[in-house]
């Protein structure tokens, strides 16, 4: 029986590796010759296989093994990266993900192993993992393949000493190589050469380093060394990326000694000896009397500490722990606020003045520190959007391939940080918008060329921080939104009156109406509007907003604005009778005291309020929540004008008490869900205040 702790570790490790694998494979399409990338991908698959074995998941081992074989073929150069290989690999990543889901829900993997998706992925992979037949070894082979990309190989080999006895000759190997391409450089490694007395002319002492340019695959080069491969070390590396116009770019980073040894001008020990004669800069400075030994020591110690810090710059923390910490800090801030209030009151009572209130000053300092602490804890929850954005590469790639379009996803501002909870809830809406852009925004390559655009469309995904909020933009260079079609559709459905004249901005907002998402609209209205109401609702549930900009023929841009964190809301405290309630500041447009003629009753008991010529519904908060108050005349009350999904409305309250940064406490865990209330917060005096949900209140009162 496998230790359950191991299985737990395996699930965490495998999820990370699968994500690494997926990201790597997608990136491989862009950088097919990045050896380091291929190695990373291979290692991820390899480790998944090994760990699955230890954890006793045989089905996963078998599957990962086939994936590993394909990747090995890519790694050793016998297969070139192609869109089909990438697709096959991604398909298998999906199977691995399914397997992980099964494991997490405690189910057996046997059913996944026989799923059609699994079998399809296996078949796709196996086509690539078969060994490719070696190309014919003939002197004119290089001519037969002209037109292929020339690659530069570094071949390092050190053969067994007694290789001459077997009739082999390293020089002949180099000559044979030159049949398949151009030898750029040959260096001999003479480091093992013995002294003259001990020199045996029948033995091979030198190693070789050959830089070789060829159109042939790696297997051809391996073939040259086939008969000596068992009797020495042969290392063949693709170093094409290191060369530019025949110059080895790596030489730029090499030390002089390394270059001299490499070109065999001097033996390595001579370099070592010369280096040993050099003194460290600190020692030289001390000897010259510029600094004291202690100063050098402390600088070295500082360097060491910094290097260590750099190496351990992050740790993983359970989000539950962060949430608890966040909650406790919230409590602390509230507690301190209560103490502040109490200390002021007590001081004033005792001394009859608020001057020279030392206690008050001390408490205010405490208040400041606890707020700073709260801010820092909030920052801990922030994570860069990069990981989330990177996922969309796959979405765009898959969909573009399916629709036979060419689409590039460009990302910027990926280092922008957002609350982890917000990011998680943002994935679906973003995915939806990006899919929309690929599906309906970007035109087919032919259509684009006809319009004088590049065949490949571009989607820009950009994140930035602006004035206490995060802005995410999804911009495409497609055909733009057809405003006339939307307008017609909305009129047809009766969402707006026939006679309505709307600005472009208003028309774009129609996209978010639930009605516009019918199947017919997809073809009529370039499809935008499919589930856009859901996107908008999701973003609003994060207390954010979404806007659209579009230019016909030029493209469209969706702009999402989000608060930095979900844990805190800027709120306005209002009083109704004995109750204090909190309204999110973002929803408040203005507040007013209506005159006698401003409020009108209409049939069905509904009331309307006239705000400088604009008529909107009036909702009496005390009636809605059955609070007792003596203030029932709107003219004696205050009316908060709130902005909501359907437009503006007035909310009648007794009094406005002031603004507060409210730490949101969820009620759902302890109470049943109350309509119109999104949470609660604790006031400075320790009382609980409910936080209102302006959208829900409107729906409740107006029966929408």
């Amino acid at each position, binding site marked *: 029986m496998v*230790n359950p702790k191991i299985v737990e570790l395996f699930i965490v490790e495998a999820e990370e590796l699968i994500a690494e694998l997926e990201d790597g494979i997608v990136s491989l399409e862009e950088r097919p010759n990045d050896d380091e990338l291929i190695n990373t991908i291979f290692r991820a698959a390899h480790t998944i296989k090994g760990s699955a074995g230890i954890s006793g998941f045989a089905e996963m081992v078998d599957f990962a093994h086939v994936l590993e074989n394909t990747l090995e073929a890519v790694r050793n150069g016998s297969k070139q990266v192609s869109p089909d290989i990438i697709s096959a690999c991604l398909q298998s990543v999906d199977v691995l993900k399914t397997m992980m889901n099964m494991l997490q829900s405690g189910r057996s993997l046997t059913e996944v192993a026989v799923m059609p998706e699994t079998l399809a992925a296996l078949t796709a992979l196996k086509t690539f993992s078969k060994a490719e037949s070696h190309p014919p070894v003939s002197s004119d082979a290089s001519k037969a393949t002209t037109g292929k990309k020339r690659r530069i190989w570094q071949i390092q080999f050190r053969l067994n000493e007694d290789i001459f006895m077997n009739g082999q000759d390293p020089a002949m190997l180099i000559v044979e190589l030159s049949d398949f391409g151009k030898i750029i450089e040959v260096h001999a490694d003479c480091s093992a050469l013995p002294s003259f007395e001990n020199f045996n002319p029948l033995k091979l002492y030198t190693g070789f380093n050959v830089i070789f340019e060829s159109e042939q695959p790696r297997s051809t080069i391996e073939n040259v060394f086939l008969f000596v491969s068992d009797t020495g070390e042969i290392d063949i590396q693709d170093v094409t990326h290191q060369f530019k116009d025949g110059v080895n770019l790596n030489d730029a980073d090499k030390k002089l000694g390394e270059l001299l040894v490499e070109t065999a001008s001097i033996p390595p020990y001579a370099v070592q000896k010369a280096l040993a004669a050099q003194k460290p800069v600190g020692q030289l400075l001390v000897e010259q009397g510029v600094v004291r030994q202690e100063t050098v020591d402390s600088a070295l110690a500082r360097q060491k500490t910094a290097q260590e810090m750099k190496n351990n710059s992050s740790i993983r923390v359970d989000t539950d722990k962060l949430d608890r910490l966040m909650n406790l800090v919230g409590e602390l801030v509230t507690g301190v606020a209560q103490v502040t209030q109490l200390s002021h009151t007590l001081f004033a009572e005792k001394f009859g003045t608020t001057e020279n209130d030392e206690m008050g000053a001390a408490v205010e300092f405490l208040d400041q520190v606890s707020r700073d602490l709260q801010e820092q804890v909030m920052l801990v929850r922030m994570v860069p959007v990069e990981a989330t954005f990177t996922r969309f590469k796959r979405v765009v790639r898959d969909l573009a391939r399916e629709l036979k379009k060419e689409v590039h996803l460009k990302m910027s501002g990926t280092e922008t940080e957002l609350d982890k909870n917000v990011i998680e809830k943002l994935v679906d809406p973003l995915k939806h918008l990006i899919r929309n852009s690929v599906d309906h925004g970007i035109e087919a390559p032919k259509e684009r060329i006809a319009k004088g655009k590049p065949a490949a469309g571009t989607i820009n995904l950009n994140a930035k921080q602006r004035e206490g909020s995060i802005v995410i933009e999804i911009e495409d260079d497609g055909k733009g939104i057809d405003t006339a079609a939307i307008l017609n559709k909305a009129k047809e459905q009766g969402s707006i009156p026939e006679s309505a004249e709307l600005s472009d901005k208003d028309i774009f907002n129609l996209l978010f109406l639930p009605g516009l998402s019918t199947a017919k609209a997809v073809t009529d209205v370039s499809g935008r509007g499919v589930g856009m109401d859901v996107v908008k609702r999701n973003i609003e549930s994060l207390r954010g907003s979404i806007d659209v900009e579009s230019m016909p023929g030029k493209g469209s841009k969706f702009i999402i604005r989000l608060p930095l964190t979900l844990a805190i809301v800027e709120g306005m405290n209002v009083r109704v009778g004995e109750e204090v309630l909190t309204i999110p500041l973002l929803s408040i447009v203005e507040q007013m005291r209506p005159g006698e003629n401003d409020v009108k009753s209409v049939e069905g008991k509904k009331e309307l309020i006239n705000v400088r010529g604009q008529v909107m519904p009036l909702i009496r908060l005390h009636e809605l929540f059955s609070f007792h108050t003596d203030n029932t005349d709107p003219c004696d009350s205050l009316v908060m004008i709130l902005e909501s999904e359907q437009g503006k409305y007035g909310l009648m309250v007794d009094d406005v008490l002031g603004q507060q940064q409210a730490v949101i406490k969820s009620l759902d865990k302890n109470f049943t869900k109350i309509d119109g209330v999104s949470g609660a917060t604790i006031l400075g005096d320790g009382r609980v205040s409910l936080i209102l949900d302006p959208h829900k209140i409107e729906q409740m009162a107006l029966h929408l």
Partner: protein
Amino acid sequence: MSGLVLVVDDSVVLRSSVKFTLEEAGYEVAEADNGKTGLDKVKELMLAGKRPGMIISDVNMPVMDGITFIKELKQGAGKFIPVLVLTTESQPAMKQAGKEAGAAGWLVKPFKNDQLIQVVRKFVR
């Protein structure tokens, strides 16, 4: 000889699995996730007066692979610590490289727990 074994492998699952097995058999286990951190760990342990009785190392690891790790280890104060290579690699060339670097043993994954303990016993009592 010390009953401390250092496990160098990039997979936490593999490390933990070896750790649990060896700890059950009465050994103390330290961990490192690649050749580079392995070297640091050896240094750290030796400075603390806890020289590992042996090291179990993977070959294919990020940052620094197992063969380089062994080579570097054998250049320094860790010279006399026996290293057992625990890997899926079974190619003769790789084994040869391991042997030349100074590996004392080669065990191919997947391994049986009893087998591992037996091999470790050869080096550390």
